[in-house]
């Protein structure tokens, strides 16, 4: 059930990003709700589930809006897998560390996207990619407390 909800939220998040947040983009930056969800899901559920959800939601993103099907699936899957390693080590009551994780994930996602784009023959500059991800990262950090509060409620409070 939670997975269905996550997919619906991701679905709406993708539509929102390409509609409402087009008009609210700051310096070309827009929030990546899927990335935030993958990172926080992984933080609470570990590498494997984080990686799987990242792959699934990334694929959803590719299918809905992507040109190269699979790139977001790989990137989000790897981000989820990596973020899941902090499951045991992260002090989950502290909200600042998850925000920093989203910040790092945004840049990590940009680097991965660049790498795999180059592999399939894409023409994207790393510096451009990183530079353009700065406003994305700021946007993501702004939204991350809300998402983290929701995930914290679902995976910590509800399980008590």
């Amino acid at each position, binding site marked *: 059930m939670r997975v269905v909800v996550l997919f619906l939220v991701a*679905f*709406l998040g*993708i*539509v*929102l990003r*390409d*509609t*409402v947040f*087009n*008009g*609210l983009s700051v310096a070309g930056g827009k929030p990546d709700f899927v990335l935030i969800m993958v990172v926080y899901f992984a933080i609470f559920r570990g*590498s*494997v589930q984080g*990686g799987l959800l990242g*792959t699934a939601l990334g*694929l*959803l993103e590719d*299918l*809905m809006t992507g*040109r*190269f*099907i*699979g*790139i977001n*699936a*790989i990137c989000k*899957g*790897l981000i989820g*897998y990596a973020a899941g390693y902090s499951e045991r080590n992260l002090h989950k009551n502290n909200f600042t560390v998850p925000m920093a994780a989203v910040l790092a994930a945004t840049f990590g996602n940009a680097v991965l996207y660049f790498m*795999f784009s180059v*592999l*399939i*023959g*894409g023409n994207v500059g790393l510096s451009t990619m990183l530079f353009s991800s700065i406003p994305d990262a700021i946007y993501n950090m702004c939204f991350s407390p809300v998402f983290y509060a929701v995930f914290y409620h679902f995976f910590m409070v509800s399980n008590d």
Partner: protein
Amino acid sequence: MFKKTWIRNLLAVVALIVVFLSLAMNTVQPRENLTIVEKGLRIASSPFQYGFRAINESVNGFFAYFTEKEALQQENEALKQQLSQLNSELVQMDEISMENVRLRELLNYKEETRGQYNLQLAGIIAENNTNLQHTITLDKGSNDGVRTGMTVMNHSGLIGRITAVMPDSSEVMLLPDRESAIGARVWSTREVVGVVEGDGSGSSNLKMIHLPHDADVYVGDSLVTSGLDGVFPGGIQIGEIISIEYSGNGLTKTATVKPYVSFNRLEEVFVLMNSGGGTA
């Protein structure tokens, strides 16, 4: 055990990367058709896109109020300045238009009186209208042939005479001045003659004095210069009688005359060059 899990995870990751990478490579080239899943997802998302777009437009409109406010204020200021400039230009155009009408009237008058009068057009550069004196200064002086005593008039009628001449300007004593006196006659009968002078009240009205009590003078009669005073040529329009009063002893009467010339709206005048010119 842990190592086995790690290797298994690693292999799974690599396998997924290989699968999705090959999928991505297959979709690098432009495709003619989307897959059924892509189509389904995009069809499902379109109602949300329409809905969110409406929200987006509302949000944009809300923020545009703040972002465009400054620009609108600047535009407003610029438009105000433009309006002010245009108003100024409009006033100038009106001035030119009115000047054009006046000059045309003067030109027509000059054409009509060609042969009778030698008229020199002059502009007014100063006015001195007080209770004590009514004078104007013209932009023509002795260098232009103007002499003291010359008659000043326009198409409406008599204005006054030159009382002082400088090289490039001259002073005119207007009819309403208390020192002004003109020999006049009633235009219709050409019989009654008298003296028209400024009434000294500060108004532009004149008075025709020392009229015999039985003189044929009526309200509405027009007065012209008689030419008998040796200063003004005869036949120049002066004004119209608007009231008549008998003096205390009943032997004479005085007529109040409204001049044809509007002395408070003088702009350009004629100097009658072939009239009683004296010294320069």
